[in-house]
C-alpha cells in the first residue's frame, strides 16, 4: 500500500524568504503522479503543482518548484519569495497511473508566512 509522509506539522517563514516543505512516499509502482495542494484558512483547496513520475525534470510554477528524487521517494516543495497569501495548510498527495483513481494524502504542513 502507498503511504505519504509529511514530517513537518508546522513551519514559519519570513515574508520574501524561501521555505522548503518535505514529503516522502512509499510505493512499489513505477508510474504515478505527485501533487502539492494548498488549503488556505477557510478557503478552497487548490492545486499548487503536479509532477509525473516519468518526467525527470522538476516541475515549476512561478514561485513554486519541486525537488523530485524518485529513487529516494522524496518530493519537496520550495516556495521562493514567500508572500503572506502563502499562509495555508499544504498537502502532499500521490496517485497511481492506473487502477483506482484515488489520491493518498499526507497529514499536511501548516505554513505561516510572517510579516
Amino acid at each position, binding site marked *: 500500500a502507498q503511504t505519504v509522509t509529511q514530517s513537518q506539522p508546522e513551519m514559519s517563514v519570513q515574508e520574501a524568504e524561501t521555505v522548503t516543505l518535505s514529503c516522502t512516499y512509499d510505493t512499489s509502482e513505477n508510474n504515478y*503522479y505527485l*501533487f502539492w*495542494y494548498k488549503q488556505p484558512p477557510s*478557503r*478552497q*483547496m*487548490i*492545486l499548487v503543482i*503536479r509532477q509525473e513520475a516519468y518526467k525527470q525534470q522538476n516541475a515549476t510554477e512561478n514561485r513554486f518548484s519541486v525537488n523530485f528524487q524518485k529513487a529516494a521517494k522524496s518530493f519537496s516543495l520550495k516556495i521562493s519569495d514567500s508572500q503572506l497569501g502563502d499562509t495555508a*495548510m499544504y*498537502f502532499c498527495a500521490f*496517485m497511481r*497511473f*492506473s487502477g*483506482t*483513481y*484515488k*489520491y493518498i*494524502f*499526507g*497529514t*499536511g504542513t*501548516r505554513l505561516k508566512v510572517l510579516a
Partner: protein
Amino acid sequence: EADIYQTPRYLVIGTGKKITLECSQTMGHDKMYWYQQDPGMELHLIHYSYGVNSTEKGDLSSESTVSRIRTEHFPLTLESARPSHTSQYLCASSESPGLPTQYFGPGTRLLVL
C-alpha cells in the same frame, strides 16, 4: 477557482436527523470524491465515483451513503446524524487519468449536537 459547489456551507443539526450534503460540478468530470477532514488534519476518502451509477466506498469507513444519478451531482447522505459525524466534508472531481488534478469544493462544516 474551479466550478464545483457544495451546499450547505455550514450545518448545525441535532442527533438522529437525516441530512444530505450536496455537491455539484459543471465541468463534466467523470470522477467525483467525498473526503472527511477534521480541522487542520489530513483528508480521508470516504466515497468515490467513476461515473453515473458507479459508487465505491473509500478507505475510511463511513456510515454515510452516496448516489450518482447524474454526472454533475454527487450527494452524500447521513440517515441518522451523530456527534461523531461532526467534521468537514470536502467534495472533489477530476477529469481523466491523463489529467488527474482534483478540483475541490469549498466544503461543508457539519456540527451534530
